[in-house]
């Protein structure tokens, strides 16, 4: 039998390694040329070449390496250089480990390692790997171990995946601990709450409970929440709702809640994982804002109605349009000024002196001592202040046009005092007195201004308002109970 014929028959096929083994010059190794190999060696070599499992045979005292295609992938950059080399030289970085393998194997023992951690230099740099290693002795013709066969399965990918999973779990735990949100888990149909970490906002629930709705929600809010849950289950989509909750202390609060369904491989809901944040404060602020908006809207409407009233009164039967327009403008200005008194919070009183000064000062004629405003400090409700502003505006405009301020020296004295009136009530007496103006006679026709003062202000203050057209000048006296005009 010639060498050539033998080589075509052993090893038969065996993939890339089969071909390499056939063409390798084994005569330079302790194994000698292929044709001299003992049958035991050929049998094991033929077997490993046909195996899809990574295997290497370490033959002889030095452990000369013969391996298969699957092992060549594991060997990386070392392949094909390590074929036919001593294991000690092929893997110098794990020489001690392999020395032990050879010692035990050739003595007839077996070794098994699970997820054995090794540092290999397969690609010219150190690399952490994990492997399942199984070593068994191979008997030669003499019936004693002639070598060691190793099944080498790298488990690095699985080990890394497990480590990554563990890290990911740890990160998830950290996230759950870092957030101030309530964290909860629900059964697929939400009938059972598996766990809830209430964070002091909601009552904690360590174990599963089917009573979670009664614990966390008020009865009247349950249908609305249930409807949103049904929708999320039907769509297998995110549950998201801002809803009222019963807080841990039993009082109502508001939560912004979001839960996502966890689906299995078939797309069925396994459970719901949710987080809810405490938005009670924000909700309170929004409600307050809504009240303010309503109030503001009311004031706007009221102001427009007042503007409507002033326009109707000012232009009614006006003969001189330009004059009526000027009058209208001035009245709107007074209204705007009076509104400044109302911009404070409802129910906050304003100083009488400030109201009078603000209403009168835009119209005071130039010159010394044209206007004296004097009286004790008093507080008025904003509403009364507004009416008084409108009335004072009318008196001031009238004085500038026809009265004391229409001449170069006329004066207005605006004074007030309080006095005790039986039975034990305090009254206010406010007097507007003009002097030094032209001779005054009662007007032929009473306009809106007079009506506003005599009728409107009197009703507003629940008192009397008298206008006396004294020849020396107009005198207007307001006499009203203090505080009786309020609440």
């Amino acid at each position, binding site marked *: 039998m010639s060498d050539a014929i033998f080589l075509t028959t052993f090893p038969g096929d065996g993939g890339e390694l089969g071909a390499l083994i056939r063409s390798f010059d084994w005569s330079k190794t302790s194994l000698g040329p292929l044709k001299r190999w003992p049958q035991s060696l050929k049998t094991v070599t033929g077997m490993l070449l046909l195996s899809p499992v990574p295997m290497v045979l370490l033959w002889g005292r030095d452990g000369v390496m013969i391996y298969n295609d699957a092992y060549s992938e594991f060997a990386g950059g070392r392949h094909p250089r390590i074929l036919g080399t001593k294991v000690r030289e092929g893997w110098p970085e794990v020489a001690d480990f392999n020395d032990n393998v050879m010692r035990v194997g050739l003595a007839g023992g077996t070794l098994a390692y699970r997820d054995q951690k090794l540092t290999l230099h397969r690609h010219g740099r150190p690399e952490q790997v994990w492997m399942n290693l199984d070593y068994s002795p191979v008997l030669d013709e003499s019936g004693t171990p002639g070598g060691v066969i190793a099944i080498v399965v790298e488990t690095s990918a699985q080990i890394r995946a497990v480590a990554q999973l563990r890290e990911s779990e740890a990160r998830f735990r950290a996230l759950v601990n870092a957030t101030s949100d309530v964290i909860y888990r629900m059964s697929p149909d939400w009938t059972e709450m598996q766990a809830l970490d209430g964070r002091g906002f909601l009552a904690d629930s360590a174990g599963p409970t089917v009573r979670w709705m009664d614990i966390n929600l008020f009865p009247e809010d349950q249908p609305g929440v249930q409807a949103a849950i049904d929708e999320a289950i039907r769509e297998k989509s995110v549950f998201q709702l801002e809803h009222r909750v019963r807080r841990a202390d039993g009082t109502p609060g508001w939560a912004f809640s979001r839960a996502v369904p966890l689906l299995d491989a078939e797309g069925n809901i396994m459970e719901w994982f949710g987080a809810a944040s405490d938005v009670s404060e924000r909700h309170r602020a929004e409600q307050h804002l809504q009240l303010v908006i*309503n109030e503001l*809207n*009311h*004031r*706007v*409407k*009221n102001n*427009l*109605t*007042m*503007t*409507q*009233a*002033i326009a*109707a*009164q000012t232009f*009614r039967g006006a003969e001189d349009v330009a004059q009526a327009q000027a009058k209208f403008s001035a009245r709107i200005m007074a209204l705007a000024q009076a509104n400044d008194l109302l911009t404070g919070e*409802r*129910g906050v009183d304003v100083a009488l002196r400030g109201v009078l000064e603000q209403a009168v000062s835009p119209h005071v004629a130039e010159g010394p001592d044209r206007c004296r405003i004097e009286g004790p400090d008093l507080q008025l*409700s904003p*509403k009364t202040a*507004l*009416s008084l502003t*409108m009335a004072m505006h009318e008196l001031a405009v009238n004085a500038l046009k026809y009265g004391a301020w229409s001449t170069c020296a006329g004066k207005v004295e605006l004074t007030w005092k309080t006095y005790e009136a039986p039975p034990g009530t305090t009254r206010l007496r406010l007097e507007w007195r003009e002097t030094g103006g032209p001779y005054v006679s009662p007007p032929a026709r009473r306009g*809106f201004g007079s*009506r*506003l003062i005599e*009728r*409107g*202000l009197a*009703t*507003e203050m*629940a008192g009397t308002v008298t206008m006396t057209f004294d020849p020396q000048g107009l005198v207007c006296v307001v006499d009203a109970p203090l505080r009786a*005009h*309020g*609440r």
Partner: protein
Amino acid sequence: MTLRILIVEDEMTIALLMEDMLVELGHDVVGIAMRLPQALELARILSIDLAIIDVNLDGLVSFPVADVLHDRHVPFFFATGYGAAGIELPYKDRLVVKKPFYLKELQSAITRATT
């Protein structure tokens, strides 16, 4: 037909406007109340055919006035800047005129309230 009407309105100029409008429509304004106590008093004692009530009287709601009128079987409707949204039970279904309003709106509200 000339009606005897009570105005409950806390804004002086608006009260005067309503008075003018009502006179123009041929009615008698027999009283104007700008605060809750006065409104309650007038609602109790005046002989009236109709009352027009603002909801907010210097920070107080006027529903007690409505209660008095209801007990006396006096027709009334609300005039308010809040519109119907500002009306509370049991007056939710009462007629409401939204401020500001046209003379016509006031007229039709009066007709609806008194027939």
